[in-house]
């Protein structure tokens, strides 16, 4: 049957599927959804490099594979280095990399594997200027090992090694702005993205594909298991993170910042709307919430300023 025009217009994602069902991600997993989007954008001619993370498991135990694309599993801290080597080999063999018809080399790593243990290899990859895309799916803790804090875990969050308790032992450091470190390399293209905004994410993936040199995308990928949130709220949470400006969507392209969402014209939603759906924030006091709220707003003002000055 013919697809009616109004529907065609509305479905802006490719139908093509290179990520298969039967994988073993938890219910409502934002990481698996993100990987599905990546493969929709890039198709089969993609080499995906995955370090130790949830996606190691999601991609399937031997001899099964969830992906319909070539996948190389590697050690935790090596994503940036391995994609560098893959790209170098493609070039050595005269194979076109990146661009419309080139081979896509994609590093797909979690926040711990990127912002913590993999930071050095990430920096090397960007600084050397390899033609590859590094995507950090940010679920804000070491989820695969059972919810331990990473430098990307937000202030006030419960994790298994910031467990709350009598002494109120919670995460006391604010989320590391790893994308600022990435931008410090003056990378050609960097962006934040969210599972809740797939069209925006795919547009950014396509832009990363077209931009020569290294690209970096930080994808906000909710984790119901680690966030102690209902499994059906994953998309809602990803949306609220943007609407509260906790995780604003923006792009950095050739030295220019552009904010995509939320609107810079009006005030973002209060952070409580994002927090209240998640069990991981239940130990926060009123003061803790205020601390987080003022940090979020200060960071939001800073970003707006950057977009204003370098827009």
């Amino acid at each position: 049957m013919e697809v009616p025009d109004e529907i065609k217009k509305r479905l802006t994602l490719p139908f093509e599927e290179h990520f298969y069902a039967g994988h073993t991600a938890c219910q409502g997993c934002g990481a698996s959804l993100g990987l599905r989007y990546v493969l929709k954008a890039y198709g089969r001619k993609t080499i995906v490099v995955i370090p130790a993370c949830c996606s190691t498991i999601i991609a399937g135990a031997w001899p099964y594979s969830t992906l319909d694309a070539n996948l190389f599993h590697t050690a935790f801290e090596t994503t940036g280095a391995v994609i560098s080597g893959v790209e170098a080999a493609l070039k050595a063999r005269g194979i076109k990399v990146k661009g419309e018809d080139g081979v896509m080399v994609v590093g797909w790593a979690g926040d711990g594997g990127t912002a913590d243990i993999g930071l050095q290899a990430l920096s090397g990859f960007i600084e050397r200027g390899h033609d590859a895309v590094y995507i950090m799916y940010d679920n804000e803790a070491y989820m695969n090992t059972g919810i331990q804090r990473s430098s990307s875990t937000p202030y006030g969050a419960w994790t298994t090694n910031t467990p709350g308790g009598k002494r109120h032992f919670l995460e006391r450091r604010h989320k590391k702005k790893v994308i600022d470190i990435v931008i410090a390399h003056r990378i050609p293209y960097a962006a934040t993205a969210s599972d809740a905004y797939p069209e925006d994410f795919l547009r950014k993936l396509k832009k990363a594909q077209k931009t020569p040199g290294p690209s970096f995308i930080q994808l906000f990928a909710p984790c119901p298991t680690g966030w102690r949130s209902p499994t059906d709220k994953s998309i809602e949470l990803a949306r609220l993170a943007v609407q509260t400006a906790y995780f604003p969507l923006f792009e950095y392209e050739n030295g220019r910042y552009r904010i995509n969402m939320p609107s810079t014209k009006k005030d973002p939603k209060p952070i409580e709307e994002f927090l209240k759906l998640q069990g991981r924030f239940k130990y926060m006091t009123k003061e803790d919430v205020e601390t987080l709220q003022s940090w979020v707003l200060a960071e939001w003002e800073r970003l707006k300023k950057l977009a204003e000055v370098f827009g």
Partner: protein
Amino acid sequence: MSGYEPIRKVISGNYAAAYAARDARVQVVAAYPITPQTSIIEKIAEFIANGEADIQYVPVESEHSAMAACIGASATGARAFTATSAQGLALMHEMLHWASGARLPIVMVDVNRAMAPPWSVWDDQTDSLAQRDTGWMQFYAENNQEVYDGVLMAFKVAEQVNLPAMVVESAFILSHTYDVVEMIPQKLVDEFLPPREPLYDLADFSRPFSVGALGTPDDYYEFRYKIARAMEDAVKVIRDVGKEFGERFGRDYGSMIELYRTEDADFVFLGLGSLMGTVKQAVDVLREEGYRVGAAKVRWFRPFPKRELYELAKTVDGIAVLDRNYSFGMEGILFTETKAALYGTDAHPLVRNYIVGLGGRDFTVKDIRNVASDMMKAMEGGETSEEILWYHLKRG
């Protein structure tokens, strides 16, 4: 037989490694500077700069990333090469396992250097021998020529058995010492070492696949067995490739242990690498003086030449194992391996251990004579020092 005109050059061991990498037509080099390895990658960079080699050079930010990048490149079908030393090799350790587990025939030159602290940049085999269990083959070069030949053979062997290989040379004694090296014309190298045919290729999209996924207890065991078998099979491949090398280029490497004047020997010195050059010289001196001694140089430490060692052990009464390395809490590493290889066989020579030359301490012909007299005393059943002799120890 070899009717070719070699290209003779007076070069360092490091340059021999670089020339060999160039002649092997490596496609990707990812490396990080460390003394005394650095001049290998400097030379390779120079080849690229002069248009003498078509290599993608990845100037990585650590040795860990050097090995990781080589792994990515090798998995994408390229012939990959790197070089390192001591601390750098130790930093790579995790990825050494990865290279062998993913069955990637990467070749690396390790310049043997002592582990810190205290800081040392001098010769010591503990860095490479500590990587014994990583699934890498290990070739120990005695001189600069063997560095060059070793790299070419290592690629050929590695690509046949789908395991990585390490070519090991001594800090400064080889790495920075100039000697005549006979290099092989490119056309002949190409005939010996054709382009790589990879086991899998990440750039082949005809049928997507994944490498290195989770292996459950149901499967992991068999993957290890496959590597174990490949190592066993490598023994024959090494001998065949070594023999072929001899037939083509006149230098035979058909045996994994090189024997020097071991016929009718009462005992032999057993050791690895450049140390054995001095030992051979000492053997000549001792022979002239009427002592029946020989030298046995272990060329390939992994896979370990069990069979050849047994055959040698049957013909001698003693083996003096010279270890420029030490495994704390046990003994010299080659000593352990030697005894283990002979255990349960009908060869029962006296095997004694001499810990020599750690951290680049000079080990001379005179020292070897001292070892010889200790060894002979022990074989006669006389009063001797302990079984493991810290030869150079300044007492008091």
